[in-house]
């Protein structure tokens, strides 16, 4: 099995709005794959589709050679024990300490004794540098610490796949650097496969083995970071260089401005 995740011709709509119209991408085993794209094009939706929280209207989504769209609820829950997701907000349980948050998946899914759980939790917290923060409550953590604590929880069960939803958003440069380093080192030391959804181009390209740019409901460019840097497509250039206007419009509506000001555009 070369690809841990494979999406083929996925169509997905949210109400009247089409999010994906024939999206295909693959995530090779053991690699870090970046998924980039402008805000609001459904990058989080992509992770939810892979995790089976949403079902596409058509197309195939395979994770570990299992067709996610066809799985029974029980089989899906079994598969989810092998994957993990780091939510943008961290999504720590606010009524539990950092220690209990990390211990949560172990207590839910294993029959390990508390002694063993304690050892595992301390190892995971050590890996993200928060062993000393084990007794703090989520409300006492900074944004960066909360995300690292959530990362410790995400790796508690030693998953095969970890999905990062905007891991760098809203982070100061130091914690951003820490998280970049953690994603890379965890991927190597734990033999994970990682999908990093982000629009922080420099950070994500610095650690990705392969990257996809999604826009206009499908993949518009893909390749290694070096290949993308040399890609001449207008939309790739606009996205990587952060230009305000281009194929992705700055303006939401297209009505003529002068007409609009005079109140005739909608009349």
């Amino acid at each position, binding site marked *: 099995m070369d690809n841990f995740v494979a999406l083929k011709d996925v169509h997905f709509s949210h109400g009247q709005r089409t999010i994906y119209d024939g999206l295909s991408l693959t995530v090779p085993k053991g690699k870090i794959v970046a998924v980039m794209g402008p805000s609001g094009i459904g990058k989080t939706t992509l992770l*939810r589709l892979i*995790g089976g*929280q949403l079902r596409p209207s058509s197309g195939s989504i395979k994770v570990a050679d299992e067709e996610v769209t066809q799985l029974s609820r029980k089989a899906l*829950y*079994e598969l*989810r*024990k092998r*994957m*993990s*997701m780091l*939510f*943008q*907000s961290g*999504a*720590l*349980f*606010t009524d539990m300490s950092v220690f209990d948050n990390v211990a*949560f*998946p172990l207590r*839910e*899914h294993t029959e390990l004794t508390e002694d063993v759980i304690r050892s595992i939790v301390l190892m995971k917290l050590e890996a993200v540098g928060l062993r000393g923060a084990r007794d703090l409550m989520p409300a006492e953590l900074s944004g960066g610490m909360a995300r690292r604590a959530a990362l410790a929880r995400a790796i508690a069960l030693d998953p095969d796949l970890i999905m990062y939803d905007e891991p760098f958003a809203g982070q100061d440069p130091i914690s951003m650097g820490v998280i970049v380093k953690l994603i890379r080192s965890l991927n190597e030391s734990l033999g994970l496969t990682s999908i990093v959804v982000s629009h922080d181009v420099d950070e994500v390209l610095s650690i990705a083995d392969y990257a996809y740019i999604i826009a206009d409901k499908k993949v518009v460019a893909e390749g290694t970071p070096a290949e993308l840097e040399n890609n001449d497509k207008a939309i790739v250039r606009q996205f990587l260089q952060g230009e305000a206007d281009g194929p992705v419009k700055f303006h939401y509506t297209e009505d003529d401005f002068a007409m609009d000001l005079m109140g005739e555009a909608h009349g």
Partner: protein
Amino acid sequence: MDSLARLGATVTDAIAGIGRALAMLLGAIIGKPTPRKSWPLFVQQMYVVGVLSLIIIVVSGLFIGMVLGLQGYTILVDYGAEQSLGPMVALSLLRELGPVVTALLFAGRAGSALTAEIGLMKATEQLSSLEMMAVDPLRRVVAPRFWAGFVSMPLLALIFSAVGIYGGYLVGSGWLGVDEGAFWSVMQSAVDWRDDLMNGIIKSLVFAFVVTWIALYKGYRCEPTSAGISKATTSTVVTASLAILGLDFILTALMFGG
């Protein structure tokens, strides 16, 4: 034609809503019991939902009982029937005010808190993260709260009635001079175990079921934004209160109407 279509959409939305609420409830309470995991969660929720509601229930019960004693006395004394103050207070509380006022207070105190808590768990992606950790949020979050509400409200209603009767006694006998022996003995002979006490408990169980269900569903289905949670919380209190009052009429008609 437009208004007809809107009416149709409203009706189908309402029916779909009931279906979704039922699906949520069944998903939460049907399944293999796991007492080792569920019991501590249930106990924790009994504390949050039940024990923390005690103060408002006890204080309200006491005042309502005292008001009943006072109002009852001023009416009964005109007919020289102040000896019947005991049964008047006890029957009002056990049959009506105990279950109904407890349920209304419970909807305001615990119901709104349940909706806001679950709504915020949804907004902060905690429910999604549970799902992604292969833990069913219906079993982990909704079920213990449902059972805690269902069990604690009838107990709170009994406490409300007991404290209320004591409040009536304090005013009637301690302050207004109704004979203490008559107060209790007439009450004892007039209150029937099955007709009054059991019917009150049945009412309370029905209210507990409905209020907790509404609160959990509103939280679980709310739009995960500040405005969405605020709307859901208000809707819990309004819907639950109307449901309590409507159901109370139906239950009273069934129990005491014939």
